[in-house]
């Protein structure tokens, strides 16, 4: 039976892992390949690197980090942040990533999703959707881009559907309202999207404790759950999260002793 995946996310800026609240107030949290290896050992099912250093000179650094990580952690690696073309995606895959996540560039040009999927296969194309509630009372969410700084007016559920029609093999759905706040995943947003698509959906944004992960799956319908700071700061281990999932009857891959 297919397991529910637990995925630590490493936000990378200028060669270091960082984490801020709502994409600002960044704090240094370590060396990316070192953290990657630690998570692989602790039972992470995959890893996600998000390059949040907007500066173009950060690209070479990122590719070097991806390559160093691929030499040490033998679990799947998704890399996102700033990939704008088929050629850039090729460079990231060649450095050792298994998948690339597209965000701002895909919103600007949805055809990019299809071009990347035709060249590398849908399984390598993750579309990252950063969403924010239009209105706290209505079940409607808007896509935001550029690290949460720019609103698009695009309906998140409609965009999720469009992205998968274009060839996205997976969606990484982040609630910008919850990101970094440790107030739990936005399960209503997750449910709206998982009901609308058949590809796997990774829940992101807001994890505080193991029970939040369980709810993202049971209430939100997520296929995988992602978090950053609670793992980096060792507030909870991957084992804690998997134990809570197993206790709730969810299928998880055993963590090696």
């Amino acid at each position, binding site marked *: *039976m*297919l*397991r529910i*995946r637990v995925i630590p996310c490493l936000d990378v800026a200028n060669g270091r892992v960082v984490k801020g609240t709502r994409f600002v107030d960044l704090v240094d949290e370590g060396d990316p390949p070192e953290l990657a290896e630690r998570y*692989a050992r602790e039972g992470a*099912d995959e890893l996600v690197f998000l390059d949040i250093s907007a500066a173009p000179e950060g690209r070479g650094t990122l590719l070097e980090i991806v*390559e160093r990580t*691929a*030499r040490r952690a*033998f*679990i*799947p690696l998704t890399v996102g942040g700033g990939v704008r073309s088929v050629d850039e995606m090729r460079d990231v*895959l*060649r*450095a*050792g*990533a*298994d*998948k690339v996540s597209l965000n701002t560039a895909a919103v600007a040009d949805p055809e990019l999703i299809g071009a990347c999927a*035709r*060249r*590398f*296969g*849908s*399984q*390598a194309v993750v579309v990252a959707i950063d969403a924010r509630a239009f209105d706290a009372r209505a079940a409607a969410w808007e896509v935001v881009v550029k690290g949460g700084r720019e609103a698009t007016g695009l309906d998140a559920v409609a965009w999720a559907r469009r992205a998968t029609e274009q060839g996205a*093999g*997976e969606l990484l759905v982040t609630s910008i309202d919850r990101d970094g706040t440790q107030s739990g995943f936005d399960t209503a947003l997750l449910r709206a999207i998982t009901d609308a698509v*058949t*590809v*796997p959906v990774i829940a992101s944004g807001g994890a505080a404790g193991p029970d939040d992960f369980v709810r993202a799956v049971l209430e939100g319908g997520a*296929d*995988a759950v992602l978090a950053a700071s609670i793992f980096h700061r060792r507030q909870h281990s991957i084992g804690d999260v998997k134990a809570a999932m197993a206790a709730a009857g969810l299928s998880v*891959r*055993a963590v*090696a002793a």
Partner: protein
Amino acid sequence: MSGTSPTGPGSRPRFAVVDYGAGNLVSIEQALVSAGAAVARATGPDDLRDADALVVPGVGAAAPAMERLERAGLVEPIRRWIADDRPFLGICLGLQLLFEGSDEDGAATLGVLRGRTRRLDDAPSLPHIGWNQVERRRDHPAFAGIPDAADFYFVHSYAGAADGAGDEVALATTTHGRPFVSAVARGRLLGVQFHPERSGEDGLRLLANVVAAVRPASVARDDLPVTA
């Protein structure tokens, strides 16, 4: 930038990894090096000459992959390699290409195994992405020391459906909706639908078993009696 071993390729079996532009080769190369192999990329037939084992990795669709293999002049050498029963490992698309054709884009593939590559039936979600259990139908040295039903990492929507002759090559099955063949073996050919290079400890153990089963040609030659 191939990962040749620092401890001397002479003592390690040489694995040629076919490079036909199908994505990430770094992980398979690094994993094979960790598993005890000396690794070089193969972009044409000449690159197979000194190899002890051949690996066809790859993700994506069959038609562009076959086109690139044709252009590299590798289609016939790969067929001959397998016909000669030399050590061969096909991973993901590299397994699917062994069948006769693919329903994904209608491509005719290598045809060294009977059957076609078909979309996974009744799958609750596609692509089938993530860790799933590989349940063995029989013993095989590649799985030595790996518990039955161990988890391996999958990323695919299609899988080889062995027709008729399938039972003799099927080594393991995995269930996503319905069971599909997740590993095949025939002679010294091994094909896996999952990614051992992305499957943590058990994946590395499988690759180490594969490497251990291949004797470097140089060592084999040294073992030959000197007299006629």
